[in-house]
């Protein structure tokens, strides 16, 4: 043991420890951090993969879905686990990759009743959901509980990613005040997605989480990266705090999580 690390951990995290910006101190911060992943699907899979590898000590995974063969085109952690709950499959993957990680699985849907209770145990939340109801629920609950949030979303060949530090920068509603009406956008099953796309966006989300936990670099606060795989372009869109934002504005209309605001659309 040196500096609280055993021989296996010294080897496992050596490439982190060598970095002046991380060191043993930073690695210990990661090991004592708790991150909640909303969804273990397209975005959640790469997030879980890299956060577990990085040694983020506690990973919460909430997903009520099971692995379908059609998921394996992009959700690479679930190989061999068709039919299993994604949260359980993800836990098995993590246990094989890094035994240092404590995994908490929630085989349920995130909803207005459970969201605040689940969020309170975590340092940061990663949204890997695929529907507007969950996305707005997660954004609002993060603002209300003052929990940082990594937002990512994908559509066909395009993705977007930003980091929300409530009350220190804009939230998702500052940019997109309300969800589009049901039927306006195709559901996740209908739209199609290039398999590598969530890998790119999810790994950017994981990068932001690691930076936030270490307290290094510049986060995507007030900036949204828009990625287009066909053009292979990354554009940065400035996001401004909206003083009329319904959840983080000067006179917010949403001050608590009420079920009726968050209708059901498609599943995580």
């Amino acid at each position: 043991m040196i500096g609280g690390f055993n021989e296996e951990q010294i080897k496992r995290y050596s490439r982190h420890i060598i970095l002046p910006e991380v060191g043993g101190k930073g690695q210990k911060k990661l090991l004592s951090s708790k991150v909640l992943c909303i969804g273990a699907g397209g975005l959640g899979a790469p997030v879980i993969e890299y956060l577990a590898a990085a040694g983020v000590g506690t990973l919460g995974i909430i997903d009520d879905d099971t692995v379908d063969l059609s998921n394996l085109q992009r959700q690479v952690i679930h190989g061999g686990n068709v039919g299993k709950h994604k949260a359980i499959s993800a836990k098995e993957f993590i246990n094989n990759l890094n035994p240092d990680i404590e995994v908490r699985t929630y085989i349920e849907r995130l909803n207005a009743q459970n969201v605040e209770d689940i969020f309170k145990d975590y340092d940061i939340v990663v949204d890997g959901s695929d529907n507007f109801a969950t996305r707005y629920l997660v954004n609002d609950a993060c603002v209300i509980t003052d929990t940082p949030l990594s937002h990512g979303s994908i559509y066909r060949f395009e993705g977007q990613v930003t980091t929300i530090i409530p009350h220190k920068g804009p939230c998702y509603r500052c940019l997109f005040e309300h969800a589009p009406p049901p039927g306006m956008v195709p559901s996740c099953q209908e739209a199609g997605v290039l398999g590598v796309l969530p890998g790119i966006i999810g790994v950017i989300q994981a990068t932001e989480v690691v930076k936030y936990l270490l307290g290094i670099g510049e986060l995507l606060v007030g900036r949204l990266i828009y990625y287009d795989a066909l053009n292979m372009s990354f554009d940065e869109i400035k996001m401004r705090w909206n003083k009329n934002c319904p959840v983080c504005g000067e006179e917010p209309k949403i001050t608590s999580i009420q079920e009726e605001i968050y209708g059901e659309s498609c599943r995580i």
Partner: protein
Amino acid sequence: MMIMVTELDLKGDVCPYTFVKTKLKLEELEIGEELAVTFDHAPAVENVPRSLKNEGHKILGIEQMGDHLWKVRIRKA
């Protein structure tokens, strides 16, 4: 004033773990304290001091203690 010298024996360790372990040990010390590390891995004698200097630490001396045995003395910055 007496300066605390901590010893670290890294015989049998190779790069990059020689540096990783030296760095972890230094993190436990207070600024200004000294660390004396013993290596038997020849490349470490060049690599570790160079990496430590990059992180701002001071190399006080490198002594050859025997055939394939070196001691590097470091002051934590």
